[in-house]
């Protein structure tokens, strides 16, 4: 029902805005900064749930072992420096001037505890898969932690960017539930209250060791409807809103009180072809799909030009991005010819998608493939069913599936390995040669060798077309006009990196 109404609501809101002399003035430099999220956080314990609405909030309460700067480079946070003892052993030096919000100093023991807590299978963290190459963490000095992995693990640092440091004494004394309900961290903002379903309130940590925030208090609210988030921005009751699409963003363009901010993320939209099912067992048909999809038109026409066509399953800031990968160019005539040659004209193929994806893109791709001669049936199911099918036995996966991938680690290992390695449940093809390259690149710290392996894999993707990378997805925020903030590719809202314009 909501989907049907959206264009209409957008139109209405746009009309209203265009002719409204009464639009309210922006809320400026006030004490409380208000952020509209889609849902409330699932958890504030940073080692439990892993979804944007949760980490938007808890990344401000906690410090991580490492972090990324606005340019996406891995930089120190709680660890000041690190060095490899061997391929499987890394020593981190820990800051000595960090205090948790209860006044206790953050020590190497807390860091080791945080690592060991999240890798403990009994703790059942959904994030376990990001850290389970770690076998142990130990405080080997007052300000020194040694982390051991079960083999050379090149993505370790990129994963540790997501490891929040929790206070051992608090977690042990209060227990997991109480800690989740009232978390204590060492970050730039302190937890104040969590009114279930309504809002999470934070206040500035005036003793923070790093850059302090400019907002004295902050409130994160749950506002599920995107049109309502836009109305909140227009009414000036919200300073920052997540999850806008290009239609809603267009409404804010003429607004006196709000503006949009967008950034390209590391998320890549793609369609995956299943080589186990005819007609995609024929390379000519896969090549035809690559030639039939006009990425530039999708980006310009549907995504409002904010997103960027992709040539590979990575953006330039990924480790493993390869310059000069050559895709098949858009060529509808050739695509038709190839499909006819393969005898696949009029062949019926299922195209799996889920409501969370942008259906306009799915429909556009389906139409483009229809133009090339295939008969495409869009098969929409809820997310859980879609995921289950996408990870089932190769032959029972859909012929084509739409997806958007981010490993949140900016390393192609987290993208190419799960999508292509035959041991992964997502993969539908199997090529011993690709498996070998991916294994090699995963298990060595030699950056040159890794890059070379990924060059071969990405070239294989471009030539053999097990999947078609479509676009690098952008994320659009709505913000109060006077907010100064550079959103980052890793989809984080660090409050202490925002300020008011003078």
């Amino acid at each position, binding site marked *: 029902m909501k989907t049907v109404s959206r264009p209409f609501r957008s139109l209405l809101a746009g009309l209203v805005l265009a002719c409204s002399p009464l639009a309210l003035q922006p809320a400026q430099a006030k004490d409380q900064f208000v952020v509209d999220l889609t849902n409330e956080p699932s958890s504030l314990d940073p080692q439990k749930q892993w979804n944007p609405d949760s980490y938007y909030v808890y990344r401000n309460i906690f410090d991580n072992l490492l972090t990324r700067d606005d340019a996406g480079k891995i930089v120190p946070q709680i660890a000041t420096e690190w060095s490899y003892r061997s391929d499987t052993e890394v020593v981190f030096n820990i800051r000595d001037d960090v205090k948790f919000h209860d006044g206790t100093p953050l020590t190497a023991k807390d860091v080791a505890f945080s690592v060991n807590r999240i890798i403990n299978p009994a703790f059942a963290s959904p994030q376990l898969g990001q850290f389970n190459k770690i076998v142990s963490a130990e405080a080997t000095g007052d300000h020194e932690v040694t982390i051991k992995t079960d083999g050379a693990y090149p993505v370790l640092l990129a994963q540790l960017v997501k490891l929040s440091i929790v206070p051992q004494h608090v977690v042990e004394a209060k227990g997991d539930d109480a800690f989740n309900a009232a978390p204590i961290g060492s970050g730039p903002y302190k937890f104040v209250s969590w*009114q279930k379903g309504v809002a999470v309130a934070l206040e500035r940590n005036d003793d923070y060791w790093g850059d302090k925030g400019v907002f004295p208090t902050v409130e994160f*609210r749950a506002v599920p409807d995107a*049109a*309502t988030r836009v109305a909140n921005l227009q009414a000036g009751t919200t300073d920052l809103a997540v999850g806008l699409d290009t239609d809603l963003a267009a409404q804010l363009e003429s607004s006196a009180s709000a503006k949009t901010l967008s950034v390209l993320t590391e998320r890549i939209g793609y369609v995956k072809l299943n080589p186990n099912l005819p007609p995609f067992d024929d390379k000519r048909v896969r090549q035809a799909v690559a030639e039939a999809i006009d990425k530039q038109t999708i980006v310009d026409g549907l995504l409002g030009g904010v997103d960027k066509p992709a040539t590979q399953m990575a953006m330039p800031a990924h480790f493993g991005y390869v310059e000069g990968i050559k895709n098949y160019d858009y060529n509808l005539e050739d695509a038709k010819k190839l499909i006819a040659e393969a005898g696949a004209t009029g062949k019926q193929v299922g195209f799996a998608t889920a409501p969370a994806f942008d259906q306009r893109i799915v429909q556009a791709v389906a139409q483009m493939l229809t133009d090339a001669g295939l008969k495409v049936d869009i098969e929409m199911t809820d997310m859980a069913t879609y995921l289950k099918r996408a990870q089932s036995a190769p032959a029972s996966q859909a012929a084509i599936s739409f997806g958007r991938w981010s490993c949140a680690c900016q390393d192609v290992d987290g993208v190419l390995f799960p999508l292509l390695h035959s041991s992964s449940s997502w993969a539908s093809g199997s090529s011993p040669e690709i498996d070998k390259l991916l294994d090699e690149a995963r298990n060595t710290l030699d950056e040159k060798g890794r890059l070379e392996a990924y060059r071969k894999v990405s070239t294989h993707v471009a030539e053999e077309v097990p999947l078609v990378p479509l676009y690098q997805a952008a994320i659009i925020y709505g913000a109060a006009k006077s907010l100064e903030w550079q959103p980052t590719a890793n989809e984080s809202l660090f409050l202490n990196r925002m300020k008011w314009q003078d």
Partner: protein
Amino acid sequence: MSAFFLKRALQAFVAVLGVITLIFFLQRLAGDPVLLLVPQNATQADIEAMRTSLGFDRPLAVQYFDYLSGLIMFDFGRSYVQNVPVWTLILSRLPYTLMLAGGALLVAFGIGIPLGVAMAVRRGKPEAKAMMGFVLAGQSMPTFWSAILMIIVFAVWLGWLPPSGARSWSSLIMPSIALGLLSMATFARVARTAVLDELEKDYVRTGHAKGLPMHRIVARHLLRNAAIPVVTVAALEIANLLAGAVIVETVFAWPGLGQLTVQAINARDFMLVQGVVLLGAVTAIVLNLVADLLYSIIDPRIRLEGNA
């Protein structure tokens, strides 16, 4: 009387058990929430480990009886996603849903009943037609549309009311109206029909004959007689309000049970969905029982019997 209650209680028990069983197995037909919980690049082993730790690898029958035996002890289970007991989550949202339902009922009754009575009494007159137009508009306007319209006019343009959230009493005004409008239309139409039926009756003519003014006939004699169909509809309408609340709560970011349910369904948070459905079933059954009781109070000629 006691035979009536015994029978109703037994019926209620069977109905609730049926609802629980149905929702328990229906949800699990389509898989489990594990894939939604883990990050995208989790391996098959990670996924299996998570499945085991949440207990989804056990046979369905075992999971089912586990849940039922928990229910007997009033243990509604834990939310897999939020790591909090289901009952705690429901309790935190229930007050908001009750406030919204109360506000909406106030709108529906407060406007709907007087409107219905006026439309009946003034049947055929221009003002009655105008009122009918208003009722029709209320009935045919989809909630998601009237809701966003109100936000734009009263919050963005005029700035009188907060656009969304649950900060103060003023936040309750728009959601109550948006939700109440639909039921208002239903009440108005039912009340109109009921009053029209009664207007034909002898006692109304007698009232006229002894010189009573119309408003006294209506207030003193007619309303009570016309109340039975309204009460029946009210019981059904409250259940409808809870369903409509899903949309209204989403648009106005009102933190009630409806919003929680949508989130729970999307995340396949089974225990939470079961808890909410159980609450809904019990509410519907209790409301119907209350309606039956009200009949006998309004019209003592209706007696509660075992075969009622």
